[in-house]
């Protein structure tokens, strides 16, 4: 890599490919993707359906492993781990937020947020503290904590899901179309929440196909047909105002998009 980052990147992927064995035909979902994301970045991955963005997200989230290429998450090479090791990495290093929230509907808000800690060895009283801290961080009123999650509005549910993604203090928060099931106003408030979490230092990668949403991040990675066709940093409000212009990126350019305050 050209300029060595001063800190370990959260994501450092090189030449990722993913081939699915379909019925008779092979599907090349990723054809050589290289990407580096530094701690504290707020990145959107965009692309039309079939571009490989879901596949990339699964690999970045350690739900799947690449066919070839290497991927280091928070400094740990995870490109060839088995299912158990991947589960361990997800448990400690990744927080997921889904489009459909994926809360347990009959469980209370608190129980939903506590759930990731079932699989880590966190002491009981510490769990409650952490869950409370996460729920406060997403701005969910305390009186709602004992409500069943299916009694909440969509925006509240997504806040619960975000709180759940934070309780194990992950290095990376991966959000898959987090505003896809929300109306614009609620989506805005969720994006504000992501913005403020990022401002506190969280590394966030979100997958979206809405330019408005992507524009509220600091960097946009555009995928098409299994390649990264664009990797652009958005430095300031001025650029954001005019939208993330298509900024061509050299083939081998996997420079981490400088710091959020860097130049484009």
């Amino acid at each position, binding site marked *: 890599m050209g300029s060595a980052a001063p800190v370990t990147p959260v994501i450092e992927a090189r030449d990722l490919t993913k081939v699915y064995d379909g019925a008779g035909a092979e599907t090349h979902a990723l054809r050589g993707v290289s990407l580096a994301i530094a701690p504290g970045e707020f990145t959107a991955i965009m692309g039309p359906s079939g571009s490989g963005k879901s596949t990339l997200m*699964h690999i970045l*989230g350690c*739900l*799947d492993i690449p066919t070839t290429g290497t991927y280091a998450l928070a400094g740990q090479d995870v490109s060839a781990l088995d*299912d*158990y090791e991947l*589960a*361990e990495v*997800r*448990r*400690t290093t990744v*927080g*997921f937020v*889904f489009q459909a929230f*994926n809360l*347990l509907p*009959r*469980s209370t808000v608190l*129980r939903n947020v506590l*759930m*990731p800690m*079932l*699989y*880590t*060895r966190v002491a009981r009283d510490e769990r409650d503290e952490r869950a409370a801290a996460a729920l406060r961080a997403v701005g969910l009123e305390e009186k709602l904590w004992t409500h069943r999650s299916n009694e909440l509005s969509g925006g509240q549910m997504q806040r619960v899901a975000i709180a*759940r993604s934070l309780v*194990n203090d992950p290095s990376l928060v991966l959000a898959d179309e987090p505003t896809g099931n929300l109306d614009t106003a609620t989506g805005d408030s969720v994006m504000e929440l992501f913005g403020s979490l990022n401002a506190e230092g969280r590394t966030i990668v979100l997958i979206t196909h809405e330019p408005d949403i992507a524009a509220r991040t600091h960097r946009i990675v555009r995928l098409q047909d299994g390649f990264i066709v664009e990797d652009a940093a958005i430095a300031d409000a001025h650029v954001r105002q005019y939208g993330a212009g298509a900024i061509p990126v050299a083939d081998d350019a996997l420079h981490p998009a400088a710091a959020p305050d860097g130049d484009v």
Partner: protein
Amino acid sequence: MRFADLISETLYSLTANKVRSGLTVLGIVVGIASVIAMVAIGQGSQASIEQSIQAAGSNLLTVSPSAGGMSGPGARASGASVESLTREDAEALAGLSLIAGIAPAAQGQGQLVAPETNANAQFIGVTPAYAEVSGLTLTSGAFISERDDAANAQVVVLGATLAADLFGEDTDPVGARIRSGNMLLTVVGVLEEKGVSGFTSVDSAALIPLSTCQRYVTGSEYLSAITLTVSDEEQMDAAETSVEGLLLERHGIADADYADFSIMNMSDLMETVSTVTGTFTTLLAGIAGISLLVGGIGIMNMMLTTVTERTREIGLRKAIGADSSAISAQFLAESITLTLIGGALGILAGWGIGALAANLLGATAIITLDSVLLAVGVCAFIGIVFGYYPARRAAALSPIEALRYQ
């Protein structure tokens, strides 16, 4: 996943769908309850049959007159009408080494006329040894003595029921006189109630000296049975062989197939009865076991449905870091919990049903630790076996596919 968390998650999931969990548990309850109840009834009746044989004396050999082998020459219609055993035979048998007690007896019907009422009764002609060999005790008076037997004395010892029939419940009839045919019998004793056991009930019989019976009631020198007690229960078969040998010799019969008597060995009878009731118990338990199997299939069915319904939840749990073993542990814990709850309730229900049924059948139900342990073992086995496949299926789901599942 911590054990406490596993338990808490399990109970949470099971109570999320109470009706379905309840019905599944019910399947196991029915299965376990029927196994426990059937085994309890089976073992209870086995024990009561064995107990009544034991009460009659398990060291008894009973020699009865009977026609020889099935195709023997001159075979008479029924054993009862055969006359072959005599008092002399009995005395000869007393000389055998393994024989401890010997009680020759003769039987006949007779009408008893008491001052107040009449009764038709069975006369049993006995010697003094009869009381000990048959395990009889007296509530009042004395048993028939050697002297009574030697003197054809006209004395009678009444069975408990017969005494009550003739003289009323509260009267002590000792000293009273009863007429029967040519005899004027003096009551010398009353037997304690023995209940229905063995093959003759002495409760409704009138015991008179053997010599008196032979002279006034049966009118013949033949015996209806010789009951022997064997000194060593382990040597029942040896004793039987020596009795048979001696009697064949005395009766001048060379081939045992043509013997004019038969010997019943209580320990053989006990074994036969045990085998029969044991088979019966196994059969009942086997039939009940089928319902347990059906209950187990119910568990599997419910767990498979649950796995399908909760596919997204499984995907989510995997995404947030649950590994395959945590997922399969969770589903396995659910099926084991269902079976254990069902098993515990089933044991209680089975105990209740067993006791009730036994009460109606006039037997006792016996719940042994064995059958409870068996039930618990079978439960755990069912929980694991029928829960394993659904749990494996849940654990094997790919998180990506599971999250996409609609």
